């Protein structure tokens, strides 16, 4: 009898694992199928895309035309670089400033705390796009049009509210005793923030980084308006050239956008490595 128990125990465990894998694999397929469709089609000729959207590229349908077009048209390396600079710089500012504000809001009680929190949260509620004209006027006035700085400022402002919102939630989870230990150790509030709190909310920072990065990377609107110049074009804007009024060069669009996935994917992988289990383990009883 006892042996039976063990067997069922084991099989229950494996069953659970199999069920978990089954669900995850199913969902992974759902998630990846459309991506797969895009990627295979970016390697096919236009006719093949629409004739047999599901088939893999073969000798006949294989074509790098899309990629060739992309590389010929404009300076894609530069566009990549611009996108990367803008994304990374805005991210850094959003994470740093956002975490600072979140720390102030979640750690200290002061008059106007709630109000400040609400004020900063309002930004999540209105799309910044609505302020376009005023932003553009401001950038024109300060001579920032067609500079990456303009984009970085806008994206920082755009990303901050969400970052503050999410980070302050996570910061409340950090043991008070830990911060207190720091205070007693003579750490200033700044070092407590930098040395204790920031490392401990790494998972949250990674999450926020990912959330912030995606809309920045994929944004079309502000590059179009604030920095459409050749030298400051971003990759998404660069890809937009292939979407015409009547004729869209799907090969090129697919190719350029498939290419554009790679850097975000890399950034994502970098950040998701910060999602570590047990970051606070062993801290307190």
């Amino acid at each position, binding site marked *: 009898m006892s042996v039976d128990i063990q067997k069922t125990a084991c099989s229950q465990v494996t069953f659970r694992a199999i069920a978990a894998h089954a669900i995850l694999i199913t969902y992974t397929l759902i998630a990846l199928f459309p991506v797969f469709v895009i990627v295979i089609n970016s390697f096919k000729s*236009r*006719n093949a895309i*629409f*004739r047999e959207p599901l088939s893999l590229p073969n000798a006949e349908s294989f074509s790098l035309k899309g990629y060739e077009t992309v590389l010929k048209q404009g300076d894609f390396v530069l566009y990549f670089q611009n996108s990367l600079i803008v994304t990374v710089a805005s991210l850094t500012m959003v994470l740093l400033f956002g975490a600072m504000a979140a720390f102030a809001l979640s750690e200290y009680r002061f008059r106007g705390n709630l109000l400040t929190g609400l004020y900063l949260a309002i930004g999540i509620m209105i799309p910044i796009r609505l302020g*376009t*004209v005023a932003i*553009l*006027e401001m*950038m*024109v006035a300060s001579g920032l*049009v*067609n500079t990456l700085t303009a984009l970085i400022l806008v994206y920082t402002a755009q990303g901050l509210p969400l970052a503050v919102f999410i980070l302050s939630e996570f910061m409340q989870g950090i043991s008070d005793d830990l911060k207190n230990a720091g205070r007693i150790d003579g750490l200033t509030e700044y070092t407590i923030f930098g040395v204790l709190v920031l490392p401990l909310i790494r998972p949250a920072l990674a999450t926020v980084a990912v959330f912030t990065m995606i809309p920045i990377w994929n944004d*079309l*609107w502000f590059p*179009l*308006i604030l920095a*459409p*110049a050749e030298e400051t074009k971003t990759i998404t804007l660069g890809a*937009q*050239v*292939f*979407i*015409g*009024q*009547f*004729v*869209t060069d*799907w090969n090129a669009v697919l190719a350029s956008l498939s290419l554009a996935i790679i850097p975000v994917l890399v950034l994502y992988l970098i950040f998701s490595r910060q999602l570590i289990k047990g970051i606070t383990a062993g801290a307190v009883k």
Partner: protein
Amino acid sequence: QDATLTIESWRNDDLSIWQDKIIPAFEAKHPNIKLKFTPSAPAEYNAVLNSKLEAGSAGDLITCRPFDASLSLFEANQLAPLTDLEGMSNFSDVAKSAWITDDGSTPFCVPMASVIHGFIYNVEAFEDAGVEVPETEAEFFAALDAIKEKGNYIPLAMGTNDQWEAATMGYNNVGPNYWKGEEGRNALIKGEQKLTDEPWIAPFRQLAKWKDYLGDGFEAQTYPDSQNLFTLGRAAVYPAGSWEISGFNTNAQFKMGAFNPPVPNEGDTCYISDHTDIGIGMNANTKHPEAAKAFLNWVGSEEFASLYANSLPGFFPLSKTAVKMEDPLAQEFISWREKCEPTIRSTYQILSRGTPNLENETWNASVSVIKGAETPEEAGKRLQDGLASWYDPQK
């Protein structure tokens, strides 16, 4: 003095033509003027342009949408008046009508091109079904029936997902034959006809019949889907605008022909939509007005007309001087100017100034009618009510 001019445009499609042909041609003549063509995506063009103009960061030369969109820019002092531009004299009043103040006194954009509506067909499909190019509505439907019967081709390549094809390549394509082109259009503007009148309902009646000839699932068929369907040789007839020509030429592997919208009865005068579509104007705040004017004058020249028309078959020059088309399909389209009466799209001038917007409503109505969700009469009534709600002559 040296100047660099930036051109705002929604014509992503033309980027290489500008870079390879037009700009070098111009710069050869004006060595101290440099041109930069910076198109943005067509769907965002208006919004982007307005924002930039408002903030003062827009380019020197501005590609003009026809009618109100540009008129409002002019009224906001963002487009410069071009009354005394010499090049303007090369254009007829009709050509200028899309970019001129309502009183007809001040033009503000140099007309560049118009597009003509009609039908492009797959010659092999017609041969396969043994049908001839239709002249009348009856022949048209007979041909479609025959193709459908034969079953090798989808008779009509059109979808309703994106909505605008139904109105632009449907309603405004076949419509002028019923409302007699300019005559009906002007009557509508003056309030002498209503959208519930027969000439305005009849095109809907025809559209309602199209449903049976469209492909399966046309409700979700997008505009590129339709293009692909046709160029892949799976559809016989494509309700088209002339702008498709160059794209179709590269993508289709079969012989194509074109016919103008069939007339209701044999012997009727045919009308075509020859729509003024693209103009170019000058940013009122440009730092190089002289250079910009030099360019605009050049746009009015014969050289430009011929260069542009032949680089972009399907976009027909509007200048008075006749231009010879090298592309046979384009030549076919432009030849209709001689046998038929041209007109522009019915909703474009004045009638889409209010809310509800007649153009947008027409898109929606055309789709509903094709799908059978609305009868032609209901659609007409809805459009009329909408228009009457704000347009005084129709009240």
